[in-house]
């Protein structure tokens, strides 16, 4: 039910031509109903026990599986068609539909300037996204998960490229799709490996006791499965080395960035690794790769965030960085911490994007902070919303982000990987710095832009922002409940370290930028800043090492082989045949039809000879 409602919404919106009000009503209403039915599912024990918060060990216990039939079968391999609900699923379902609903409402106002057809296309794509995301977390087997997995990638492609007449949006959409396809292939190979070595690809088989025993008996298999799953997670969650698409994805409408590229889709990798704990438990090597790369992403993306001018890209780097925390946490076994960070991050990052959306609406879609400033008084809602989000992101207690981010770091401190912990601690220092740099440069000081500031926010833009702001302030309660439900205790020592780090970062930003003066930012302008902003030259490497060579080989194959070598070989063969024909008979006249006739006759004669002899 939860799954079908958004899907029905998407179908209705894409096939019928509806008036604008109805489009919005169907789009947002179907998500609200999905959220309510999700609540119902959780509270009525659609999952075993009072999920998601109370049941201890929810991850290790088997969830409720609803088998609907066979999706595909070949030889001994059977892929079921069914759904799977447990505590992990319930958390994701509620975040997806809950935050998804708020963002749909926000979109009603944000996309009001689009034509009727584009308005419908927008909500159809958004609903389809929610449906695919729900399938991703509700599937009971890896192939079905992959259907949802690729579905969110496809809708993300549609929405990044929503303004398809803009070349930058088109390029960004393609890049996102292709990098995500790399991840999909990783998941396909993981499935193939499971099928070959475990003989099953559903959750019960792979992650249940039998699968866990098989994985424990073959650590190499577990390692390869874990690494391939991480390839998929890295592509979807924009982690090194497949991170390059997320910052470009900011070409999409801002509510899309909030829903897909901050709150939900990019956390799919976290879901995948949390879901496959059995694999990572069996292979410390795979867990270390995933966890360290996640931590490295958390740090590297934070450094890029420090140097960013484009406020949406800054938030995108912040997202990569925060998802890095989550990945690192779940990979090293701090599942409750990582998943609770998904929840709080969904609140405060969606809030930050909404605040930025309000700003962009007011300053004619400007995204460069150097042409903002002084907006605090003109845009009070955006200002207070951004501030609440920034405090939560920075990890300042008692705001939401603190409780979950600290839990991840505490988990790592005890999980024993100090390399990853050090990287995350450095990132925790940088995070308050870059987000308050953005806050002061955007809202403090004097307005530096050229166009007029037009504050206009309809009610549909306002109240989701307010709701999320409240959640960003008090949402930590969910994180703490979730952690205690899954048996993770708070760690005062780690909490003290995290608080000090956050305050130092904030203090540094305050001392440099508190006046909102752009001149204080001169130090980011140099060659170093440019290098960091280009993601350390990653784009050039990617283009030079893969994209251009592929196109070069394509041109060479078409020119040298298809254009010359093959035709030459054909001509030679043809000339040989013609000479033969000339020598043998008088039929040769240069007419293709004659050749055809003679060849047919020849073929027929051969046949007769074979039959009658």
């Amino acid at each position: 039910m939860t799954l079908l409602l958004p899907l029905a919404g998407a179908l209705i919106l894409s096939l019928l031509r509806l008036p604008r009000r109805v489009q919005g009503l169907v789009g947002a209403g179907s998500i609200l109903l999905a959220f309510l039915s999700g609540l119902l599912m959780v509270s009525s024990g659609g999952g075993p026990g009072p999920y998601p918060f109370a049941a201890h060990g929810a991850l290790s216990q088997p969830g409720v599986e609803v088998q609907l039939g066979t999706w595909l079968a070949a030889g001994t391999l059977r892929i079921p068609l069914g759904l799977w609900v447990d505590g992990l699923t319930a958390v994701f379902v509620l975040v997806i539909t809950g935050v998804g609903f708020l963002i749909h409402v926000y979109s009603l106002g944000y996309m009001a300037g689009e034509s009727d057809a584009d308005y419908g296309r927008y909500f159809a794509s958004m609903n389809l996204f929610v449906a695919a995301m729900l399938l991703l977390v509700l599937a009971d087997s890896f192939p079905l998960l992959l259907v949802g997995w690729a579905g969110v990638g496809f809708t993300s492609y549609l929405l990044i490229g929503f303004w398809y007449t803009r070349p930058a949006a088109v390029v960004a959409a393609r890049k996102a799709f292709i990098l995500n396809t790399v991840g999909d292939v990783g998941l396909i190979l993981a499935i193939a490996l499971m099928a070959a070595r475990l003989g099953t690809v559903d959750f019960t088989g792979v992650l249940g006791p039998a699968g866990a025993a098989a994985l424990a008996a073959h650590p190499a298999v577990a390692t390869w499965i874990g690494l391939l799953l991480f390839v998929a997670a890295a592509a979807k969650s924009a982690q090194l080395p497949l991170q390059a698409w997320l910052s470009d994805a900011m070409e999409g409408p801002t509510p899309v960035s909030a829903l897909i590229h901050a709150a939900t889709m990019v956390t799919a990798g976290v879901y995948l690794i949390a879901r496959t704990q059995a694999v990572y438990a069996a292979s410390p090597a795979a867990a270390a790769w995933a966890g360290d790369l996640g931590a490295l992403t958390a740090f590297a993306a934070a450094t890029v965030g420090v140097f960013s001018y484009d406020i949406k890209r800054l938030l995108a780097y912040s997202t990569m960085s925060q998802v890095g925390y989550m990945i690192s946490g779940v990979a090293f076994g701090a599942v409750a911490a990582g998943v609770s960070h998904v929840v709080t991050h969904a609140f405060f990052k969606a809030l930050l994007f909404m605040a930025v959306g309000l700003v962009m609406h007011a300053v004619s879609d400007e995204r460069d902070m150097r042409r903002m400033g002084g907006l605090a008084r003109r845009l009070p809602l955006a200002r207070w919303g951004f501030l609440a989000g920034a405090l939560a992101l920075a990890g300042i207690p008692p705001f939401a982000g603190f409780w979950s981010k600290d839990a991840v770091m505490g988990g790592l401190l005890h999980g024993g990987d100090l390399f990853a912990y050090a990287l995350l601690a450095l990132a925790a220092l940088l995070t308050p710095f870059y987000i308050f740099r953005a806050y002061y440069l955007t809202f403090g000081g004097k307005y530096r832009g050229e166009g007029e500031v037009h504050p206009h926010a309809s009610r549909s833009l306002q109240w989701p922002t307010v709701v999320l702001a409240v959640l960003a302030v008090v949402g930590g309660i969910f994180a703490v409940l979730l952690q205690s439900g899954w048996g993770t205790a708070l760690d005062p020592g780690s909490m003290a370290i995290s608080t000090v780090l956050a305050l130092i970062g904030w203090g540094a930003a305050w001392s440099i930028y508190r006046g909102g003066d752009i001149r204080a930012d001169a130090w980011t302008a140099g060659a170093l800043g440019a290098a960091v902003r280009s993601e350390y030259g990653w784009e050039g490497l990617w283009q030079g090492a893969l994209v251009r060579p592929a196109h070069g080989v394509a041109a060479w194959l078409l020119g040298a082989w298809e254009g010359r070598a093959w035709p030459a070989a054909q001509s030679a063969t043809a000339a040989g045949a013609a000479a033969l024909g000339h020598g043998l008979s008088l039929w040769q006249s240069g007419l293709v039809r004659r050749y055809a006739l003679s060849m047919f006759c020849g073929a027929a004669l051969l046949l007769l000879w074979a039959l009658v002899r």
Partner: protein
Amino acid sequence: MLTLLWALPVAAALAIAVSARRGAWLGPLASTAALVLALALWSRAGSLSVATPWFHGAYGSLISYSLGLSGLSLLLVVLTLLLTALCGVAGLRYGGAFVAWLTLLGGAATGMFLARDLVLFYVFWELMLIPAYFLLVGFGGAGRRAAAWKFLLYNIGGSVALLVGVAALVAFGVTMPGVGVGPISAAGVPAAAVVPVAVALAIGFAVKTPIWPLHGWVADTYAELPAPAAALVGAVQSKAGLYGMLAILIPMLPGGMTRLAPWLIAAGIVSALYGALCALGARDARRVLAYSSVSHLGLITVAFATLEPAALTGGIVQMVAHALFTAGLFLLVGMLEDRLAGPVDVRALGGFARWAPGFAGGLILLGMAALGLPGLAGFPGELLMMVGIYRYSAWLAVLAGIALVLAAAYMLRLIQLVLHGEPQSGAATRDLGGGEKWLLAPLALLVVLIGIWPHPIPQQSSGAVAAIEQLTGAQPAAAAAGSNQGGNG
């Protein structure tokens, strides 16, 4: 009953020809009637056959008129008749002669998928060649003569190779598997002849499919044929070679197939990558689709040659899916060509999404199916093929994975260059009309349905796969060894 399946279209083609090419609508009508008949037989696949002695050949062999409807045959027959009907409707405006040739092509392909006698199979095989040639020469684009010459050169070469193989099998007294596909004794073939005969058959099948390096005819042919004919040839005729592998090469010469498998796998994987790269660079949308086919069919060949049950099943599912989206894409490109009054040069276009949202939706849906987006028809087969290929060799699966990523790249390039960006001059065009939408609707619907619930296809083809598994019983041991390497590699 089975005879009607192929005879209805052929009779309609003859009727159109006799009626001085009026009544072209007879073609799609007869194809539809045969399609309905085939669908009525859905649950009876595997139990229907016809056999009448035809004439006596050499060595006391009996050539019989023998048809049989296995699950695999049924899938391909349904597909062929559906596409013959749809392409026939799309081709009505080219006149009676066009529809007649097209319908004849569909009838011949249907007969070939039903034949249970080697000679009969070969007769239908050759019967497909003639209409394809005349469609090309009679109705093709500006470069049709050169294209037709290439088409003939390759296909007759392939036919001769196939003929040698078929004649040898007949001479050695090997008969085609019946409906139940029992074990066939290949004992009649002298050990020394097994490999040469298998090579001859493989060349014949590889040309038709086509597989690199015998693909030289395909780009020109698909570019020059009128769109409905390209759709039918690309979707159906290309399955003849693959079907031949499944129905003749593997069951009748299992030993030869095992010897040949590494070569077929190598050629198939080169096809998959070579085709994908060429598709990435091609300018004409038709050629993008042609090379895309080379890539897809190459991967199916790899899957079949591994002889893994999962790969065989996946390859069959992918045959069905490929036929649906390839036909749909050729028809769509043809509709765009009509509007542009010329070939679709992807680099000179853009912005069609603005003017033709229906067209854009169709191209995105079918293109996504072609690049294997999970949830659409291109995925289930691909997944099973990858599972089977992985069991054979992990590295081979990685190479196949690269082909899948390239598929995303070239398909997105096609979609985006045509649909997105600023509308170019001349892009202001009308969207798909009602008739065009109805023509594509069945294909789009099937592409979605198979993506959501693919199970009925492997259910139909499980008999064929099980039979092959039984015949190549020695295979699983080798496969297990391969997967061990994979797991530890």
